Each structure stands twice: as C-alpha cells, then as structure tokens.
C-alpha cells in the first residue's frame, strides 16, 4: 500500500477534481428539470416582506385623474422562447401570454409618455377618495404567479421604477428556485417572491382554488362558502396580510363578496374591462386585459379613453 500511496492519492485527487464538478452539474440539472420543486414550506409572512409603503405626494400635478386604467397581464415570455403550447390551434399566441418584446415596448411607452405607475397603496388611496393621483396614472397587475413574470417582467419594471400588484396562487409557490425553461409551466419560488418584493405587492388569488370542476364551474363559485373562506384565509395567512384579491378567471358571486368583507380584504379586482374610479364598488374594480395581439396603438387607446 505504502508503495503506491502517492500515485493512488494523486489519481484519486485528479478523479475527484475532474469528476466532482461533472457530478454536480448532473445533480443540478436533475434537480432543476427532473424533480419538480415542491410547494414552499415557508410562507411569505415568515419572510418579513412588507407591503410597499410608497405613497408619493402628487399635489404638484397640474391635472388629476378622475379614473385610472388597471392593466392585467398573466405571462411574459420572450418571442424566441415561445413553444408549441403557447400557441392556439390556429397559430395565434395564447391569450395569457404577452411577448417580452411587446411588454417592454408598452412599459417604454408609459415611461416616455410620463405616466405615473401607481403602487397598490396609492391606488387604494385614489379609490377611497383619500388621495389625488396625476391625470396620467395607471395600475399594473399580474395574475397567477408565473416564474416568467419574475424572470422577464420584473427587470423591466425595476428599470423604470414601476410598481405592480401580483395576484398569486399561494399553494403553487415552490420551495426552490429552478432554472427557467419555457417548455414547462413554472411557478415562482418563495425566494423569487421575496427578491421581487421591491416591485411587486402580492395579492390573494386563492390558495388552491384556481380550478374548474367537471361542469366547468370555477371552484370559488362551486364550493361551499365555508371552503372558499377557508381557502382564502389560508392564502391571506400565507401572504401575511389581507390587502387585495382577484378571483380566478374573474368568476365570483355575491357570496364571494361577503367572504371578502368578512376577511377584511380591502380591495378586489374583476376581469371586466373598464376604468377604475372611486364611485365603483371597491371589491369589483374593472381591469383591462392586455393581449398578445394588441398593437401599441391599441395600448395607447386603452390608456387614453
């Protein structure tokens, strides 16, 4: 043994040095793609992420808004990463997806036109008549909590110092960050949520009721109010606050509104197109869905009328 100790040792070291990193690469890959990450064990409330407290003073504005458009997005994916599943049968891009190129153009437009992108707090002030906001104001919202929003939309928003509200399905948030791959429907991880909390305020999009039953009825409408309430409570606890809510598919009924009141949710959105103004029911604020086939002209039209 002694005789060969040196050569054995050297060879073993060489083996470890070369083979170790390869093993790690493989491990990393398998972890990323082969094993879908589990639901997050921690919740956002454990992570000390506060709501964005930004509340600017707009008293120097020349004109004030009497109504504000609320924009709704779902997924943001670069054009060259679109896969077959992002297209409908007639070759159109899925309505839930806006390409990163379009999104960037829209955000640049807001910047150029000097729009004020409101934080949730400012918008709430506007809706409750406690605050005046500039004539050219807008609120940006995202639904579902997809990873691609964090991957692609977040940097754009951050660059422009914009804010947005992100309604997340809290039960789908994962416990570890994986590499982005557009081939899969990936949800954000708890770490990503925390990281992006300087841009996003997180809203309630149910904990696990983003489904339809066999008859095609949304769980929020199909389930007994006790169950719905429990599910929404869970999501609120997970978020650590009961600030904002958006119903999955925009489907809800009067019972849902009662639950929202019971849970002291302050503000809730629909998917009905329209402008938000303080005279409306604060739990039924309309939003404009932004779709992949919108040109920048369509975008402008929504903002200005």
């Amino acid at each position: 043994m002694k005789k060969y100790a040196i050569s054995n040792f050297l060879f073993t070291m060489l083996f470890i040095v070369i083979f170790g990193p390869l093993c790690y690469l493989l491990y990393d890959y398998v972890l990323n793609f082969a094993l879908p990450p589990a639901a997050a064990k921690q919740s956002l409330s454990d992570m000390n992420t506060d709501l964005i407290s930004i509340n600017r003073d707009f008293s120097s504005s020349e004109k004030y808004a009497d109504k504000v458009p609320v924009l709704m997005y779902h997924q943001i994916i670069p054009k060259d990463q679109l896969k077959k599943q992002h297209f409908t049968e007639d070759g159109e891009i899925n309505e839930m997806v806006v390409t990163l190129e379009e999104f960037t153009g829209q955000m640049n437009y807001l910047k150029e036109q000097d729009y004020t992108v409101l934080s949730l707090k400012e918008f709430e002030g506007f809706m409750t008549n406690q605050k005046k906001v500039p004539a050219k104001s807008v609120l940006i919202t995202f639904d579902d909590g997809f990873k691609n929003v964090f991957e692609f939309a977040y940097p754009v928003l951050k660059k422009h110092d914009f804010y947005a509200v992100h309604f997340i399905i809290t039960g789908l948030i994962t416990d570890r960050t994986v590499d982005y791959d557009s081939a899969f429907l990936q949800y954000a991880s708890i770490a990503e949520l925390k990281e992006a909390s300087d841009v996003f305020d997180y809203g309630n999009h149910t904990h696990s009721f983003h489904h339809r039953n066999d008859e095609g009825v949304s769980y929020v409408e199909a389930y007994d109010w006790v169950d719905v309430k429990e599910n929404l409570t869970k999501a609120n606890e997970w978020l650590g606050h009961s600030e904002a809510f958006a119903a999955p598919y925009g489907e809800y009924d009067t019972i849902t509104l009662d639950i929202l009141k019971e849970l002291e949710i302050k503000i809730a959105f629909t998917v009905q197109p329209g402008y938000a103004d303080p005279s409306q029911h604060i739990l039924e604020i309309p939003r404009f869905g932004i779709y992949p086939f919108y040109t920048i002209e369509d975008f402008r039209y929504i903002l200005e009328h």
Partner: protein
Amino acid sequence: MMLTITMTLFCLFILFHTLYIFIPLYTSREKMRDYPTIEKGISILIPAYNETIVIENCLMGILNVNYTNLEILFINDGSTDDTLETFHKHLKLAKTSRLKEGVLKYEEVREIYQSQIYPYIWVIDKENGGKADALNAGIDFAKNEIVITLDADSILEPNSLNEMNLTFTDDSVVAAGGLVNIVQGFKRNEQKFAPSFKLPGLIRYQVVQYLSAFYLHKTTQSRIGSITVIAGAFGAFQRSILIQAKGYRKTVGEDMDITLRIQELIGTVLKGKRIVFVPEAVCYTECPASFKNLYRQRIRWQKAFVDCVITYRKSFFRKMNFKVSTYLLVDSFLLGTVSAYPTLMVPVIVIATMNHLKLSLILLLMSIVLAIMQDIATLLVSRRFGHLYCFRDYISVLLFLPIEVILYRVTGLFFVTVGTILYFFDKDGWSRSERIGQPIMLDMGVKAGVKDTLGG
C-alpha cells in the same frame, strides 16, 4: 419516467465503473510471491483445429515454461489442414496408447501419439466435434489434478504455471483465469520482450481494452467473487470440478458456459469455493488485425454472452449466488447489452426533439471522462505488474485514449447490438477469425535445436 430510467441506469453505470477504477487501484500490488516447493501436476489441454500457422508459437511458449510436473495434450480436432503434420515435424510423434477415465462423451479418438523428443507432450487425434468436444476428450485423458486450457494461439509466459501452482495451493480455489496479453502489443528489443505501442489503431484499441478488461474488470470481479468468464485462452481448473460440471457444453461460448456452470456448483453444492483471477499468470495471444476479423470475433463473443444469459436465465439468484447474478445481469447484461440500443438511439432522439440536450451532453461528457480515467487507472495498475511502456509510448497512449474512448467504443457498441440481433438468427455461427501467426521469438533460452526446427 424515461428520465428516471435513464438516471437509474446511468448511476448504476457510474457506480460499477468507479468500482472498476478504485478496487484494483487500492488492492492491486505486487505481492511477495512465495512459490511452493511442491509442483502440483498440471495437464495442459490445447484443442487445435486447422491451426498450422500458430501452433509453432504455442509450442514455443510451452517448451519454455519453468515447470516440470507437466503434461501437454494437444487435441487435433479433425483438422483438415497440415496441423497434424506440423506436430509430426516438431515433435517426432510415435503412436502409443493411453488410459482414459471414460467419464465424458466426445467424438471418436482415432489415434494417440506421444512425442519422442519431449515425452511429456501428447497429441490426441480425433474426429471433428468442435472445441467443447475436443476439450472434453482432453479432460478425459488428462491425469493431473490441475487442468489448464489454452487456445492454440496462446503462448505461455515461462513463469505462468508456477503462478497457477501457487494459486491452487489455496484449497478454496477451484478455477482460475490467467491474464491474456496481446502478442502484437509487445516488441523484442535487445533480447527483451517489452510492451510497445507503435501499432495500428485497431490493435491499439484492443491492447487498451484487454489491459483494462483484465487489470481492472477481472481484478474487481475476482475481489467481489463474481467472475463470469474465464478466458478460453488461459484458464486453470481442478480437474475434478470439470468432471463435476459434466465437462464442456457444445455452444458458441464454451468458456463462459463452463465458468457459469462452476458458479452454479459454487452456489449450490460447493459453497465457499472460489474462482479467482491471477494477474501474475500471463499468456500471450494474437488479436484480430483486420476489422473484418475483429467483427467476427466480437460477434462470436456477443452471441456467446447472449446464449449464456438465455441458457442460465433460471439459475440466476437460484443456483448462482447473489454477487455473480447481480454482476452478470446488471453490469454485463443491462449496462453492457440492453442499454447499448438506447445509447445508439440517444443522438437521434436528441437531435430530432432537441429536448434534454444539456442532459445528454453532461452524460456524454461524464462517460468520456470516466472512460479516460479508467484507462489511466489501467496504466497505473498494469505498471505495478510490470507492464511498462517507455516514456514516448506513454505519451502516445495518452494521446490515443480520447480517440479510443470516442471512436472505438462506438464500434464496441455496434458489435454488441449487431451480435445480439444475429444471435437470434444464427445461434451457432462460429465464424472463425483468421489466424495471423507472425513468428514470435520469446527469447528465453530456447534450446538451439528447437529454435531451428521452429524456424524462429
């Protein structure tokens, strides 16, 4: 699902091949060989069927062994060429008779000859019956307790029988395999017979393959007690166990077949007995020098392997112990044969779908690195047993390794896949590889007279 299967197979592959590197590396060393003073009787059996070209080399090796308690039985298996005449020429044969035990069946023996020059060399002339049949005849006529089987083109290293003798002093050893070197991989310079790497690529590939097959794989198998093949080129057995195994079975791969039969016995009635590999016991053999002949040889080997897996399918884990069964089914069959098909399909699938491209590349890179590492370990281990190349040769070996791994191993995959398919069409196609028979001079103090007759 596919990914799970892939990853499982790959992890098994990595595990086995890492063991192949580290077990030999940390356990192989030149021991102080303490040769016993008593020479056990050894009977060497050499079946010959149309072996005119190589038989002289074989004789050379035999005449040079430093061993006295020895008899050699050439079995002329109904050759249709000058094999028998060649024996006559070199051995001055005289007709004689010889006792046989009569425990095994084989084709009719025409004549028994004994050499008048070397009385310990005999030739059994019999009707053609195939290699297994010839070996059975040899076993029946052999009178010593240790039986060594050689191929007609095997050249024994002078000290090889002493090593075998030492091995069999351990009573638990019932069979032992020797190390087979490729004769073309050696050159004579200044009275020395030393490894050289100035060779054509096809032979280089086989040299590297043989070295790692014996110094790493066989060593590892020997350590864990899972030897599944004792190479027909150089195997040693207790004669009694060959008879207990009812001799050789007529099949395309009789060497693997007999080894598995012995493993069955070890797993059932002979618990505690062992089959070992003896890296110090060396013989030299020719390897095919052309692709066509290599193809024939490898297809034959693969057919032999598939045949054994099918023949012994019911014995695994029942008659054979866990280690042997696992080794054969997992490493040889699953990783060696079954996975060859998907491996060949992978590039096609990956290029067609562009899925998991990164994964494929990682796996490929890992396989290549592991293979090269294994080859380097082979060089390290073989050095310890005196297989030394000169510095320049080591450089060319190292430069050759990536080529070997990337280019030649694919050929290996091809042989495995084709051989397996061909087995089902032609079970017993024993297409012979042509012998080359380049004159080898093992300069070990051969008697001058023999030198002349052997035309060395």
